[in-house]
């Protein structure tokens, strides 16, 4: 009778057949979102990370990654990161890696909750969390690799059919720990929950015990034999420790979600999702909401100011100075580093005293030379390189290399500065490093050819220009008051117009009109045929207060500037009637003049 009843009920059970799995549509959608985000608005993240290290194709470099747990994952991550140099390839790789957790969890779900309508939803959440974390420019590929490795190992273990096979797979935990370091500890938590939720009998306790023992042994052994890092590094490497509240929250959420994942799948698997509406909600609507939320989070997490700074940096580092000038004027950076790069771009295009106030100058003279600190060590060399104080540029680049390791920009600057200084032995040393990379090899070989040939160095458009700027007499560089170097550079080498305009920019920003106009007499002998606009404006301020013109050394003020000053003066006198609106009125018409800066900033 019972059998018959069961047979009768069979046709009804067909109603509960699993719905078609549409997860792959969502995974593809996720991939496209990530790809487009990092190709266009978030591309600055890729540039920033590519600039953090050099992947060297040498045995010594590779072997270093095998000296401590977690480092092999770093090797893979750095290998992939080098491709960020190309926006398309970089975005493609990053989107693929970010999609991997979803794919792996999808396969895990087939084991843990076969046929469940929530498979896609649960699988896609970690990828979305990673994507949001990845919006932070310090979220390295290493962290993605760590999560991918631990999930892959979890998949391997739970895919074993028999308990014996699971023990065997688990015995390979030290391999995971060696590859992914502390990410292995997240796996430990995940597997312990899995054992307690999914396994039965004594194995639900024996397996976690075995794993805990293995994890403890791994930590002890690595501590004893492998590494010499401090205690924090020993236990936490390479987990992220980024000083950003959103990133920390996302990382904790991600870790908690993964550790509890077996429990979540257990509970989700028990849910009976049978009605079409429920199925739609579980397998389409909810994943779509998660994806939409991820897009919204991306938009919210996007930091336009950070993007502007790094984009400016990219333009300057790639020698696109005119583009950098226009970019900052169109999309002003409110950041010190952004404005610093704008000033370098102005100097490199000979527009310092013609365009200085066309872009924002919110940090006064700090955006001309960055103060000496480890915070600014990545960028500080560029200003000194711009004014031809090559020894100081080299020092900053070298110090950056000592503190942060070999990076594209510090190595390139070391190559260029050693060529300019004629230290060709060191050029060979630095180029030999860049030649071991995939994407800087050609640049290194091109520059290596110049070593030993001062004429070739002088003929190079960039290097030759800097050779001509070198100081004539020696002096000790002023480190804490870098502006004090400028008069020396100018006096010893009147051809150094870059240093001269930096000096004039310093005086303009400091509103030191008297000292500024005193230098105008030098300009004709320096090769100037006209006075740059902002210096003219300063001269007219001087004239307005003193009633006489300073010695212009044979140069003349342009009629346009005189006319504009008259307009400014008239507008100022008129607007003064309304003191409350004075600044706003003047800003509207003359906001990019030195006169406005002088009176209102």
């Amino acid at each position: 009778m019972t059998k018959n009843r069961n047979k009768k009920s069979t046709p009804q059970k067909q109603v509960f057949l699993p719905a078609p799995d549409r997860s792959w549509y969502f995974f593809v959608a996720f991939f496209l979102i990530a790809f487009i985000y990092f190709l266009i608005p978030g591309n600055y993240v890729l540039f920033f990370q590519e600039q953090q290290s050099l992947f060297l194709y040498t045995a010594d470099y590779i072997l270093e990654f095998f000296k401590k747990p977690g480092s092999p994952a770093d090797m893979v991550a750095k290998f992939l990161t080098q491709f960020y140099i190309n926006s398309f390839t970089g975005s493609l790789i990053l989107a693929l890696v970010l999609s991997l957790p979803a794919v792996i969890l999808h396969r895990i779900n087939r084991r843990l909750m076969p046929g469940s309508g929530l498979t896609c939803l649960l699988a896609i959440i970690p990828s979305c969390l990673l994507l949001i974390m990845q919006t932070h420019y310090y979220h390295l590929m290493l962290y993605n690799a760590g999560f991918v490795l631990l999930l892959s190992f979890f998949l391997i273990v739970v895919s074993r059919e028999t308990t014996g096979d699971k023990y065997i797979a688990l015995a390979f935990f030290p391999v995971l720990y060696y590859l992914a370091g502390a990410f292995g500890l997240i796996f430990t938590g995940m597997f312990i929950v899995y054992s307690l939720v999914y396994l039965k009998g004594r194995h639900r306790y024996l397996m976690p015990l075995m794993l805990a023992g293995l994890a403890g042994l791994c930590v002890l052994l690595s501590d004893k034999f492998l590494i010499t890092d401090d205690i924090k590094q020993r236990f936490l490497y390479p987990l992220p420790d980024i000083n950003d509240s959103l990133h920390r929250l996302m990382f904790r959420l991600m870790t908690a979600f993964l550790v509890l994942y077996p429990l979540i799948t257990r509970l989700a698997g028990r849910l009976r999702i049978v009605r079409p509406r429920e199925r739609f909600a579980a397998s389409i609507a909810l994943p779509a909401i998660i994806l939409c939320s991820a897009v919204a989070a991306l938009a919210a997490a996007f930091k336009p100011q950070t993007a502007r700074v790094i984009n400016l940096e990219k333009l300057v580092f790639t020698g696109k100075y005119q583009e950098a000038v226009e970019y900052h004027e169109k999309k002003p950076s409110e950041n010190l580093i952004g404005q610093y790069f704008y000033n370098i771009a102005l100097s490199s295009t000979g527009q310092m005293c013609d365009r200085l106030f066309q872009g924002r100058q919110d940090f006064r003279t700090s955006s001309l030379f960055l103060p000496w600190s480890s915070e600014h060590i990545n960028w500080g060399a560029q200003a000194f390189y711009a004014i031809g104080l090559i020894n100081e540029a080299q020092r900053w680049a070298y110090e950056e290399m000592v503190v942060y390791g070999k990076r594209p920009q510090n190595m390139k600057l070391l190559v260029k500065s050693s060529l300019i200084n004629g230290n060709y032995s060191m050029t060979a040393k630095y180029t030999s490093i860049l030649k071991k990379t995939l994407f800087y090899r050609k640049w290194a070989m091109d520059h290596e050819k110049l070593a030993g040939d001062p004429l070739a160095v002088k003929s190079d458009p960039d290097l030759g220009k800097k050779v001509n700027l070198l100081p004539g007499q020696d002096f000790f560089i002023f480190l804490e008051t870098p502006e004090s170097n400028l008069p020396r550079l100018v006096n010893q080498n009147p051809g150094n117009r870059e240093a001269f305009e930096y000096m004039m920019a310093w005086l303009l920003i400091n509103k030191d009109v008297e000292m500024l106009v005193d230098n105008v007499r030098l300009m004709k002998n320096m090769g100037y045929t006209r006075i740059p606009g902002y210096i003219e404006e300063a001269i007219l301020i001087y004239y307005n207060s003193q009633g006489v013109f300073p010695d212009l050394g044979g140069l003349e003020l342009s009629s346009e500037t005189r006319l504009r000053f008259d307009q400014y003066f008239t507008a100022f006198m008129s607007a003064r009637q309304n003191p409350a609106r004075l600044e706003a009125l003047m800003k509207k018409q003359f906001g990019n003049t030195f006169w406005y800066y002088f009176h209102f900033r």
Partner: protein
Amino acid sequence: MSVIILLTGCSGKSGLEPSGTGRLPAIEPDYTDVTIPPNIAPMNFRIEEEGDCFWLTATSESGALSIDVRSSDGVIKFPAKSWKKLTGASAGSRIKIEISASRKSSGKLEKFEPFYMNVSEEPADPYLTYRLIYPGYYNWSHIRIMQRSIESFSEETLIDNKILDMNCINCHSFNQYNPGKFMVHIRGSNNGTYISDKGRFLRVDPKIESMPGGATYPSWHPGGKYIAFSSNQVRQGFYAKPEKLIEVFDLVSDIVVYDTERNLTYHADDGDTTGYLKTFPSWSPDGRWLYFCRALQTGSQSVMTLDDIEETRYDIVRIPFDPETAGFGKTEMVFNASLNGKSASFPRISPDGRYLVITLHDFGTFPIWHREADLHIIDLSTGESRKMDINSSETDSYHTWSSNGKWLVFSSKRTDGRTTRPFLAYFERWDKTGKPFILPQKDPAYYDKLMESYNIPEFVNGKIPLGPRDFAKATAIEPVGAKSGNPERSLSTKTIEKAGMERNPGEKSIHE
């Protein structure tokens, strides 16, 4: 004995037409006609000649022993055991090296003129210790003190700042080349002078109030009880022109002697009130004299201009010392370098007490950044001096004698002008030294890739039985501050405060 190392890609010599080049082969490092100790590791090098295959035969002078090496890429790596036998059997004579190269394109076998490596009878001390550090400016990152067996390629880390809170690790000094008794300075959160005596650590601070700075540049008294230090307020200046990079100079400096048993620090005072800068102490082998460098103070103790520094020239002087009472006599001039417009640094006396080797440069106190710096030797019995024949056009500086007085290890920047490398030179007599050679490495291209400098190479007569973790553990010891051995002696408080407070623009203590 004949050993052949076969490498793939190299076929036999048969069928090739031999021809003599009439010249020596270009090799890197340059090991042609060098003098080596019998206990040196294999002198691996690479042949920088065109060729598809290279053959090398190294033969003892008697012809009884030889090693054959074949290489397709020109890299010559001698097998360790065979090399040991060859050098052992060649002590007091020389090894003949013959190299030939084949080119497929021409079908010729080019034979180069043979060159020789002279093997001395006297070995060098088996270990070298040195600090590996970037030759940088203010910043440091990873710093290690290493010990390297010169008899093999074995190199081990002795101290690693990765487990010392990234502190700066400074000078190390051994008592009589003894691996069981040495000291090292650590600056930063684990600050102190760590003294290791037979595996037992002391953590002390020899600085007393009257010293212008911390204790630096140590030298152990041969008796093992005292350590001489200089106490310096060190500053750095960075040059604008490409020819020079850095000038390291002292605002104020003085010499002190620390009694390790009684924890007392004494100023090496002879009552002379002239304003001197005093640095780089070094004991005579009998422990009765303390040599050091001394210059008339040109700056104002708080500011040194470039002109001041260029006018500061150090002489070598010595002061008698009584180990029983820790008393000092009157300072006397040993080598008046300033008289000849030069400045002397790093006095090092040979173990027999007869010779003094110094670094001579144009001015100032820190020759490491002076390209013109060269090693000079002074015969202390006659006062005669001469430039040694081991110098190069780049900086040749920091040097140490081996315990048998037959070898010198010194730091040279001759390979690239920036990074220092350890060179060993055989000391035959005061006017003759063997051609120096760079410490051999397993990979002959090692130095090309290494960005760090070998800093303060010191001979040690055995392996130091300690490692980085031992030093990390030693940081748990509470530091003990020294007391003044001659409390009546002190610099004026005003002078110390002034020197510590005022700074030349752009100058900063290198340890800040």
